[in-house]
């Protein structure tokens, strides 16, 4: 007689899979990858490939030989982490530092907690902050973009727009004095400015974000809450004193703001589970980012802000529950 399978319902499964989600993110990252290779040349490619390959390799190594469990590197999450790590470092970072970054991201921030889905902090950002603090010099010398079309020029390093503003204001200059030193908004938008690889081109990042929204990989809540907070908060300060504070458009387009908002704060593993919680999370990231940018020692605050908010995600998840069915009956219920 035929042996049937028995199992609980449901008996069918949708199209979603972890793999699809992760490779969807990779696809969304392609435009930004191309832009960064265009502006930073072969070096960008080196860092990208190295970071991605070593992330995947470390995950494989740890799963196979340390944790001795089913190897799931093919799900693509390590690849995403690797690419995002590459996006968060300057394209001229020495190779061995990139490899250390991958080891920190995968080994420390992800696998120590048990692997995909169990980590508290965003692995790529842990690695970035780790590198930033470990190698302050290498991590803050940003190559100037030299478009591929103009041949392979010497790598000249220079400060990021945020660095220029931070230093300038500290030195007592005003925003209008600094403006000529800064790239134009158009340059910000296209990506023709100094910075880490992934944070330079607003348009490419937004394109990727739209793709992920369309594919339902992310929802709008975190990016919108975060960017709105930044715009409003920096807008108020700017309106208050435009010479002392940079304008909101500048704040939104520079640094890792968009990369963070679209690709890193949205990492589902390390962000809250409900829309309400996500709005709060985005708000917190935005607020902390601006606080750190304006008053902290670092010119850039997105990474820290996201990590700080990552740490309170378990608390947010406790407080923010989905709207339960039945709590608003829509009609008076007799006791």
């Amino acid at each position, binding site marked *: *007689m035929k*042996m*049937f*399978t*028995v*199992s*609980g319902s449901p008996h069918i499964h949708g199209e979603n899979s972890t793999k699809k989600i992760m490779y969807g993110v990779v696809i969304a990252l392609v435009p930004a990858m191309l832009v960064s290779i265009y502006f930073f040349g072969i070096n960008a490619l080196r860092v990208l490939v190295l970071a991605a390959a070593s992330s995947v390799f470390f995950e494989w190594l740890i799963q196979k030989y340390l944790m001795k469990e089913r190897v799931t590197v093919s799900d693509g999450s390590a690849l995403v982490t690797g690419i995002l790590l590459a996006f968060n470092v300057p394209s001229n970072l020495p190779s061995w530092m990139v490899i250390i970054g991958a080891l920190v991201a995968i080994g420390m921030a992800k696998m120590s907690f048990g692997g995909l889905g169990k980590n508290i902090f965003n692995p790529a950002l842990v690695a970035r902050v780790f590198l930033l603090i470990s190698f302050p010099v290498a991590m803050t010398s940003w190559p100037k973009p030299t478009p591929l079309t103009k041949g392979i020029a010497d790598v000249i390093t220079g400060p990021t727009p945020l660095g220029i503003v931070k230093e300038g204001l500290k030195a007592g200059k005003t925003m209008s004095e600094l403006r000529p030193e800064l790239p134009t908004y158009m340059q910000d938008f296209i990506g023709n400015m100094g910075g880490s690889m992934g944070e330079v081109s607003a348009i490419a990042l937004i394109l990727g974000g739209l793709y992920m929204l369309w594919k339902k990989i992310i929802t709008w809540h975190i990016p919108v809450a975060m960017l709105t907070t930044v715009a409003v908060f920096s807008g108020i300060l700017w309106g208050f004193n435009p010479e002392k504070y940079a304008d909101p458009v500048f704040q939104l387009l520079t640094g890792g703001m968009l990369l963070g908002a679209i690709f890193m704060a949205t990492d589902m593993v390390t962000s809250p589970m409900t829309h309400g919680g996500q709005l709060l999370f985005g708000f917190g990231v935005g607020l902390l980012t601006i606080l750190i940018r304006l008053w902290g020692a670092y010119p850039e605050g997105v990474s820290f802000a996201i990590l700080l908010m990552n740490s309170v995600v378990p608390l947010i998840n406790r407080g923010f529950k989905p709207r339960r069915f039945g709590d608003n009956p829509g009609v008076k219920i007799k006791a």
Partner: protein
Amino acid sequence: MDNIILVSVLVLGGVGVVSAVILYFVASKFKVYEDPKIDEVEEVLPSANCGGCGFPGCRAFAEATAKKASEEHNLDGLFCPVGGNDVMKKVGEVLGLEIEEQEPMIAVVRCNGTYENSPGKVKYEGVSSCSFAHAMYTGEGGCQYGCLGLGDCVDACEFDAIYIPEDRGVPIVKDNCTACGACVEACPRDIIELRKRGPKEKRIYVSCVNKEKGAVAIKNCSVACIGCGKCEKVCEFDAITITSFLSYIDFNKCKLCRKCVEVCPTNAIWEVNFKPRKIKLDKKEDKKDGDGKAKSVAKEEKPIDIKSGKVTEVKNNPGGNRE
């Protein structure tokens, strides 16, 4: 020069004395009594915090014993199954009481529906939880009383005393069982029972819990109890009763004469830790070659050294999902 030493002595001494005085008064004024015996009892307990005693932890058990001892001067109904008589004796000593011995018990799995005896009729796919499967269907072998083999009991055991051999799919209890009863609680089908270990670990029991009519029972499992009543008749000590086609041996009455074992047509009655006797190849016994082995199982099975961590993974649903 001596001045500084003098001042130090005065100041520090002063601070010390003032603290002492204040503390003394505060302490005597706000006194709360706690029985020091509780700590002493807790110290002799095994600190397994398994809850086998029925209290939420060793400390709670210690409190309960101290209270009962001081109020009623006995410890009736309080027993630490893990520590057993030795520990209870010590507890008694601490509390100044005599403790009656309780006969040692062991968990017994009353099902022999192995892959061989009760071959699968469907394939189960789902979580490794007997409780879940119990609510869903009969079980792969088709017996709706029998073991589901997903190891809730194994997960429940704090002592690594029960495991499911890969080729059997039905658990086996090891000798280090402390009779804490956690597995009994965990099994949704009430298959596991705490029984007396018996003299020299010898015990006899019916390894089946199927309450269906014999014909149905035997269809799903070749070693099921069919309620034929032969054992009941042969038992001279009234130890066996049959209710809803299922035989049960009262371990308080059973004298381990082994007569019932011989008459059982389906080999549903197990004798454990007896010397293997000459197997009379009569009736159905020749049908199954491993009969002697199957019956005197506990001692023989013990050497199967499956690493403790591994046991939980041994499930009879190869396709099942378990993290």
